[in-house]
């Protein structure tokens, strides 16, 4: 069984982002980028399934500009066998990315598709669900446990009320939550080996995808700052302050 894993290049999660003064976006030049943390978890899960003999081949896929090649190299170092780069120079949104990913999924004849539950840049949390809808396949989002056996997956999902378990028929789409696994550290020999693994570059046109109408970005602003707080010395001082404001 082939597994597909999507990876997205995002600003590193430790970076304090800055909004551009003209409101056109956030500063990305010269800022550290990494693989979206949820996608590392997706990658790790696919690799573990391969180690258990349930997956025979892992294909990493990304949709984005030239710099996304380094993201795919990281996925290859993780253990992907090969990669597909859907090269798009302009900014694309979730539905268009989902159309491209669904096309790759079909073309490659994959049976299971792991994606992160959300990307930490746009925080949209849409792509996996959209891919599943476009392919009319089952989805298990926010997965914290995945068992695959006999053409089915049993997935535990993190939902507001607790943990929900679903049984889904393969092929299926699974999006990964933080607690699914602990991604491994990359080893230098694997990083070296990854340089030799193949990356196929395709365009949206090659996949027969026409970009869906986009949400127009009007502006990006810095959120209002909270006013400076006060440091209190004792519990009594804190209690007095909170009582004074009618909070307790």
């Amino acid at each position, binding site marked *: 069984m082939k597994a597909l894993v999507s990876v997205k290049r995002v600003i590193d999660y430790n970076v304090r982002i800055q909004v551009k003064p003209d409101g056109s976006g956030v500063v990305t030049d010269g800022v550290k980028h990494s693989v979206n943390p949820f996608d590392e978890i997706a990658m790790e899960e696919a690799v573990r399934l391969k180690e258990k003999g349930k997956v025979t081949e892992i294909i990493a896929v990304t949709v984005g500009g030239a710099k996304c090649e380094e993201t795919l190299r990281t996925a290859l170092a993780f253990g992907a066998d090969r990669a597909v780069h859907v090269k798009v120079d302009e900014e694309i949104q979730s539905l268009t990315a989902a159309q491209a990913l669904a096309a790759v999924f079909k073309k490659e004849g994959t049976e299971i598709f792991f994606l992160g539950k959300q990307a930490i840049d746009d925080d949209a949390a849409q792509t996996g669900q959209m891919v599943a809808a476009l392919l009319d396949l089952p989805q298990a989002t926010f997965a914290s446990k995945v068992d695959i056996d006999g053409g089915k997956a049993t997935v535990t999902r993190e939902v507001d*009320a607790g943990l*929900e378990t679903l049984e889904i028929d393969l092929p299926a789409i699974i999006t990964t939550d933080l607690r699914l696994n602990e991604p491994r550290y990359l080893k230098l020999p694997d990083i070296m080996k990854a340089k030799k693994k193949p990356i196929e570059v395709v365009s949206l046109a090659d996949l027969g995808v026409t970009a869906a109408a986009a949400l127009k970005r009007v502006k990006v602003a810095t959120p209002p700052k909270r006013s400076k707080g006060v*440091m209190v010395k004792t519990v009594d001082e804190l209690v007095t302050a909170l009582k004074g404001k009618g909070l307790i």
Partner: protein
Amino acid sequence: MSKILIIGQQAEGKLNSGIAKVVNAAKAIGGEIHVVVFAADGSAAAAQAAAIDGVTKVIQIDRAENDHGLAVIVEPQIVALAKTGYSHVFAAGTTFGKDLLPRVAAKLGVQQVSDIMAVHGATSFDRPIYAGNAILTVEAPAEPCVVATIRLASFQAAGDAAAAAPIEKQTLDVTLPTHTRFVKLEAQKSERPELQSATRVVSGGRALASSENFSIIYSLADKLKAGVGASRAAVDSGYVPNDMQVGQTGKIIAPELYFAIGISGAIQHLAGIKDARTIVAINKDPEAPIFEVADYGLVGDLFTLVPELESKV
């Protein structure tokens, strides 16, 4: 004129409390506001939806398959309904809404607007990006329809209606998939206020150091009639279950009063509490980033300060 369809998330006959907030977001647009309830028997939840001020009609779709609110089951039914002339389809930004709505958007061929935090007009909205460190204003195409989830922490709940809206039972001729089966739900039973609607929340972090030590957090919360939350570190360390996690990847909350106890204040945690009215931080590290956003900060050992605080409130 706008015609807004709100997905009336329910479980076991109880309408999700967030729906009244989604109705308020819809009221900012104006027009007709319909709430649709999918259940095996949605009578109770439909009556609750009909009692929310601003709702003009409730649609009740009873079908055995709707029992567990699975996204793949509900989606084709919403898509069929949406195509009957709705300008907007809204859901709460809960795990249910986030799971379901992108499927609906993809089937309708539209980009979804996630986590609306402000409504400027029928197609103009603000939403947070980069863990809430930037606010994006978007203009969504009006055609064929606007599909969006509403960030519950950003809206007040609509009040009670003077007169209940009419409830219309409908049947939809839609074939539902069988590829997804509900197995079980392990719910965390709690007598405490629900995190996302609590007016006061007490959260603990890694510094609690054990599951047993969390009892001082519960104890303070009970005294304050507060909900209990946690940082990711506390969840990952196994001190508390994951549904208590507050932050970018957990729950986004906006209580009147928030206590961050033994929480350093990573960007991802702050994303979940930025809209709290008053933030109190107790931490032994005076350099902890939580103090940059706290309205009141107290430096010291939480194991002595928290019991003292409990005895004095």
